[in-house]
């Protein structure tokens, strides 16, 4: 029974129509969640004892960092589905993830630098979180570069899928080796937003922002994936009908 659902979801016309219908169901909740999070984070939460108003950057930095990592996992997983079960929808989803993930990795780096500047005195300090994000950015760029270097879309899909799978296995290792490396050398203050130490008034808006950004990503993904599917499908029948509807 589950397999039937799985294969239906993997059928391009089905996915295309489903994506179109689902997008607003992710988009509007995303807006509401983010607004709620912003109101709570900017308006209601009290200033931090140590970091003053500067900590409010966390309400955009954490979602950006979360997105950068989550999107890579989604990218690798859907690429694996596309590669192993030869489902084009998987490749379409993976291709859609890359530009989104890369741009949010850049945002995570930028907001991280702005967060760190008042604390460290410099914009960049090779702390483990930002160094990890930087390596993640390189992984995204490599993925996109490999894709664009291979002309045939199907081959590009498969080659980049292998790369994404190898990358997603390596990401935890890179992350922990960077943390380990950083702990050896006198590390400047690491950005800490450990959940146990955060009062609810600070934590709840953060969770709202994280959820909002996740919904937002889903809406973005569905939109992009529809275009990627159109580019990969040559079968005229369902496309003509689907284009009429949208």
């Amino acid at each position, binding site marked *: 029974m589950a397999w039937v659902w799985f294969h239906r979801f993997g059928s391009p016309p089905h996915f295309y129509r489903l994506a179109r219908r689902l997008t607003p169901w992710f988009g509007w909740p995303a807006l509401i969640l983010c607004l709620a999070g912003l109101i709570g984070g900017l308006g209601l939460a009290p*200033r931090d004892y140590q970091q*003053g*108003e*500067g900590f*409010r*950057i966390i309400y*955009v*930095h954490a979602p*950006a960092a979360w997105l950068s990592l989550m999107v890579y996992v989604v990218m690798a997983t859907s690429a694996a589905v596309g590669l192993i079960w030869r489902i084009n929808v998987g490749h379409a989803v993976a291709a*859609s993830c890359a*530009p*989104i993930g890369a*741009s*949010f990795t*850049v*945002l995570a780096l*930028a*907001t991280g630098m*702005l*967060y760190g*500047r*008042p604390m460290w005195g410099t914009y960049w300090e090779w702390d483990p979180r930002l160094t990890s994000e930087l390596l993640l950015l390189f992984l995204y760029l490599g993925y996109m570069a490999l894709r664009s270097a291979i002309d045939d879309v199907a081959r590009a899909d498969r080659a980049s899928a292998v790369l994404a799978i190898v990358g997603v296995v390596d990401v935890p290792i890179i992350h922990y080796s960077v943390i380990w490396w950083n702990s050896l050398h006198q590390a400047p203050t690491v950005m800490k937003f450990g959940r146990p130490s955060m009062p609810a008034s600070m934590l709840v808006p953060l969770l709202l922002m994280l959820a909002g950004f996740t919904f*937002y990503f889903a809406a*973005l993904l569905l*939109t*992009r994936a*529809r*275009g*990627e599917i*159109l*580019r990969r499908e040559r079968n*005229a029948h369902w*496309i*003509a009908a689907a*284009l009429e509807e*949208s």
Partner: protein
Amino acid sequence: MGGYAVYVWPSYGLTAAVVGLNIFWARRSLRGAQRDARRRLAALKLAAAS
């Protein structure tokens, strides 16, 4: 804001920019693919008719 404003507001501004740009790019990518698909279909119809 205790001097942090110069860091906080650009962070939110950048975020808004990235969020907005992604929406714009995603919709543009979809519209482009739809346009190309329509063109392909029209060309196919033309080829089939002739």
